[in-house]
């Protein structure tokens, strides 16, 4: 199955906020290690809720679970702010200190790879 092109945005959610001080918990993992897509985009990918998908941008790739949100226009992906999203955002600040956390072009594809929990995800930076 080929992937789809998306414009990626990130942002806060209430459950992400409730777990700001407990980011190593299952609740945070379930809430933040996910990618929301419009139902039509999920159909194109042939994925159902909680299937793993791989999000790839010019800056990295990350595996997260998919969730349907028809509030997103087709072609837009949302990952809650946090370590999974930050694996694929654009760190270039264009000289003003602010990375591009929103508006990143990328692809989403179906995958069989696992979603990494926080310690293992952080290990990928240790090499």
């Amino acid at each position, binding site marked *: 199955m080929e992937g789809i092109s998306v414009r990626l945005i990130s942002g806060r959610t209430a459950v992400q906020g409730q777990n700001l001080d407990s980011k190593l918990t299952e609740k945070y993992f379930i809430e933040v290690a996910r990618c929301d897509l419009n139902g039509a985009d999920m159909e194109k990918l042939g994925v159902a809720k909680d299937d793993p998908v791989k999000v790839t941008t010019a800056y990295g790739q990350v595996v997260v679970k998919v969730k349907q*949100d028809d509030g997103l226009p087709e072609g837009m992906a949302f990952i809650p702010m946090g370590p999974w999203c930050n694996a694929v955002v654009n760190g270039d600040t264009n000289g003003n200190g602010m990375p591009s956390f929103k508006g990143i072009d990328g692809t989403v594809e179906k995958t069989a790879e696992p979603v990494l929990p926080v310690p293992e995800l952080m290990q990928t930076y240790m090499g």
Partner: protein
Amino acid sequence: MVEITDVVCSLCGCVCDDIVVEVENNEVVKVKRGACSVGKAKLMGHERIKSPMIRENGKLKEVSYDEAIKKSAEILYNSRRPLLYGWSSTVCEADKVGVELAAELGAVIDNTASVCHGPSVLAIQDVGLPSCTLGEVKNRADLIIYWGANPSQAHANHMKRYSYVSKGYWTGEGKKGKKLVVVDPRKTMTTKMADVFVQIKQGYDYPVFSALRAILRGYEDVVPDEVGGVPKETLLELAKMVKEAKFVMTFFGMGVTHTGARHNNIVNAIQFTRAAHLHTKASIMPLRGHYNVAGINQVLTWETGFPFAIDMARGYPWYNPGEDSATDCLWREDCDSAMIIASDPGAHFPGQSLRHMAKIPVIQIDPFANPTTEFADIIIPSAVSGIDAEGSVYRMDNIPIRLRKIIDSDVPTDEEIVGGILTEVRALQEKEGQ
């Protein structure tokens, strides 16, 4: 069981100060009223780091506070270019000591504004900010605009306490007498509440602000049929709402600071507010995230002249965001140690910056384990400000509010820990001087 009233929430920039909790056996057992779901989670507490720790051969070993503080001072003192980052989820008293430490070390000091409303700060320095207090919004505003923000999720009490749903002196009917406009590229819980939802193309905030400015200044003929996915008729309707309102209040979030033109988006948002002044009263305010990110901006500004991203290596404060902002310093591999306090770059910095954080010694001061803990070589648990420590913070409208201490604790505060490191650094300087 003791009921404590007027508890102040130390979570988001709303800093709600009318919370009622019940405390039993020195623990918060119930949040009775006042807090949103996010604030309630904070007040009820989470598992904390139990002891200071130092990483040796990849394993964390429990140590005393004195040992952790002494070792931290040695690392920072022996660094060529230490980065002191965070400072937003703690109180101004700790921030003040942090600035002293940065000055002694010749360090780079930055706070979470640089990945939040740093671009807003740059815009405000550029063109000023016609703003007001949240009290004025509550009492006066009859047209509320949320632009690139989702307060239903991120600032859940904001509408109820200060804006669309609140009832004030001249807004006694609450939302019946007000209009709500939400501008966002996606539908959210906030957009569902709006009288007018403007679904903008992601990253097109700048031209849409420009189109509204043109209409408000009488140049609607130059506006094309569609701007950034928004039909001209919608823009004309919005401008009409602005002209007819008694008091227009625009709140903007990271939907505009995190993308595209960044600070120029905010410059244009402020100029949109100025154009509204041709017709009515209008004001604008960033929706600040951490409960005291506004406070560290205040402390840094009164101590150094600049609000974030400050390099003290020259012996005087040097301000150049993009060079001395934390993510840039890390990405360029410019700093050789980092002290992270009251924030979590492990969760909130781009991976490109974290690759360097993995290579340098990292000191973490925080009550809670988080992704940054995975990088930390020294971990120093601190008291939770607003629960077991008091202190001053600044709400998102720059109103200072005193956090209350609601349980007893012998865990040292951020101010005490940073003060301890500062004392040790000065002792090392004195020793070297001899």
